[in-house]
């Protein structure tokens, strides 16, 4: 059966048979860096293409259809254009922070790729506090956005950055609470353990209604955290022209743009891991035969399928809903989502203690 895990293991053995342990590690680290950057680029291209096609489908248009079959090379061409574009800098900006900001946002997004289990046994870094790591590192990206807004010396950028700061800080709480409610069920912060605990069914089915509530809150919160419509107040092109990246152009802008899409991928991957079992195939309790059939589908397909399902969900939101106002956004978080998720966490804890879940 096709399995990335086996390929990787035999590759590791083959390297080990030729070189000593240190060299193997160095080569593998270089390969992983290469892999991460490649994945970053490919995901960016695929997600942008997907977004354009999805929006076109929703908006009764055709979307990109000229470059390559079905326009699949459109985003490649766009990226090329962005790379060769002059990366000019406005005169009055704070030069150091202005140049640093896109890299902070991008590096944060790349760091988040580390603990994600892409398939059975395929993970860059199996860290025992994986979920904690993701929530901690993902909050760093707001620093990059604030930096960009401040350094641009533009009133619109500043407003956008401030909105973004308030928004991400608030919505992280709900996202954290929603994640916590799965953690209390599994009792582990390790993503592999969390997946292993869904051997006999995904948490969204096993955790009764509280898991469903946690999932809904998680999706809302991460949509806000990644600055996507209907919570795209930081960019809000009809109010703040471009928000925090108004003054950015060329590749610097592209880095913000790519980081946004990578962030979507990551939050959806985490969501899929926590609620839909990550790479774990669809298993029902002890229906051995059914579970075996499901196992024939490679785990990587399960993982990417679930992740892209969630990504499509978030894209669907974006092209349907109007944007909230800034005070309504904070009201929603502090008056509704946070109390609900706290209560939900309590109920979930009760379920975990009593063992009422399946």
């Amino acid at each position, binding site marked *: 059966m096709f399995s990335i895990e086996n390929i990787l293991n035999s590759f590791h053995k083959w390297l080990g048979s030729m070189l000593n342990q240190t060299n193997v590690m160095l080569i593998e680290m270089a390969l992983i860096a290469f892999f991460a950057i490649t994945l970053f680029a490919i995901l960016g291209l695929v997600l942008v293409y997907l977004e354009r096609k999805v929006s076109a489908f929703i*908006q009764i248009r055709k979307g990109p259809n000229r470059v390559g079959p079905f326009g699949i090379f459109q985003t490649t061409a766009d990226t090329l254009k962005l790379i060769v574009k002059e990366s000019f800098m406005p005169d009055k900006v704070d030069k150091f922070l202005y140049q640093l900001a896109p890299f902070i946002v991008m590096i944060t997004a790349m760091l988040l790729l580390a603990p994600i289990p892409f398939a059975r046994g395929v993970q860059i870094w199996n860290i025992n506090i994986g979920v904690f790591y993701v929530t901690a590192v993902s909050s760093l990206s707001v620093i990059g956005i604030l930096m960009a807004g401040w350094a641009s010396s533009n009133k619109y950028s500043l407003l956008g950055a401030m909105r973004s700061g308030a928004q991400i800080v608030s919505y992280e709480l709900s996202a954290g609470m929603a994640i916590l409610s799965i953690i209390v069920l599994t009792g582990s912060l390790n993503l592999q353990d969390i997946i292993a605990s869904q051997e006999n069914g995904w948490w969204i089915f096993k955790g009764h209604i509280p898991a469903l509530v946690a999932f809904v809150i998680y999706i809302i919160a991460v949509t806000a955290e990644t600055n996507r419509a209907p919570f795209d107040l930081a960019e809000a092109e009809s109010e703040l022209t471009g928000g925090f990246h108004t003054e950015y152009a060329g590749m610097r802008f592209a880095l913000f743009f790519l980081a946004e899409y990578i962030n979507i991928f990551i939050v959806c991957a985490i969501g899929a891991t926590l609620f839909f079992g990550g790479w774990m195939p669809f298993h029902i309790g002890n229906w051995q035969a059914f579970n075996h059939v499901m196992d024939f589908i490679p785990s990587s397909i399960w993982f990417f399928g679930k992740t892209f399902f969630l990504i499509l969900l978030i894209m669907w939101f974006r092209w349907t809903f109007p*944007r909230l*106002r800034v005070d309504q956004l904070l009201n929603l978080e502090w008056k509704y989502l946070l109390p609900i998720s706290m209560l939900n966490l309590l109920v979930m804890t009760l379920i975990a203690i009593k063992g009422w879940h399946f």
Partner: protein
Amino acid sequence: MRNVVETTPEGNMVLNVGPQHPSTHGVLHLFITVNGETILNLDPNIGYIHRSIEKMCESLSYRQFIYSTSRMDYLSAHMNNHGCALTVEKGLQVEVPVRAEVIRVIISELTRLASHQLWWGSLAMDLGALSPFFYAFREREMITDIMEETCGARLTMNYIVPGGVMADIHPDFQRKVKEFIVQFKSKIGEYHELVTNNVIFQNRTKGIGILSKEDAISYGCTGPTARGSGLSCDMRKIYPYSAYKNIQFNEILETEGDSFARYMVRMREMEESVNIIEQLIDNIPEGEFLAKTKAVLKLPKGEFYTRLETARGELGVYIVSEGGTTPYRIKFRSPGFSNLSALNHMIKGHKIGDLVSVMGTLDLVIPDIDR
């Protein structure tokens, strides 16, 4: 740390919205004084697209000047032409053929529909929902096709001339208008499902930008903006002109005066326009479409004023004639100009995000304001 953003002595920030800004839909420039996100004061700076149409018209003949009025409120070009034609006809005392009157009204109502659809799409876009724009344009496209066949243009249309209309309607006109009505009626529910009933949309518009009836009168607001505040000001109903005398339709009034009321007025007005077209489309009388007039028009000495309803409100055409072949003085009282003057009053104390929704529901067309 360097002070990146200048502030006023009170510590507020002056933000330039426009002249290039995605939600001003043109070259409107607003100075807004903000404290954080809250707008304290708004000062419109207009004139970026001022072409002095009034001065130009003073050297154009009565046949020529009508064409420059399509460039004022380009979304209700036919109504602008209609207003000028009515004023000139009033001066000349020309009897317009009934067929021309009916065609004028149908064309005007189609223009109103097209204008409101564009407004609906762009309002949703201002509020962050990008898809409704395409749904609106799907139906608007049918109207522009009809216009293209009959009037020969899709945007700056000139069709209504003193004495009637420039040419007879296209043979497909009636069939295509009926097709449009069927299509529109099947889709209006979709509009409401997608935008009107959306919770976020309602929260963004209800209770925002309230304009009381007294203020609407004092600021000289007209059209759907004033009708959202409960001020009955539909010129088609109050001073019926052309074929509006003979048809049954309702004046749409809402009383709340907020953005949502203005929104609902326009939405319901679209259905009313369809109702008007339905009454007329099968009853276009046979006959002349253009009255016989002299080659060179000369208005008698005097002053002529016409009030009529465009998609945005009341258009006033004021012609002062000295008896020559060109107007001595001409003044267009444009609806957007007065509606814009109420914006500062409506927006004070609201957030920057609300500026967009209030401006959207005022339905400002900048060339109409600047002229």
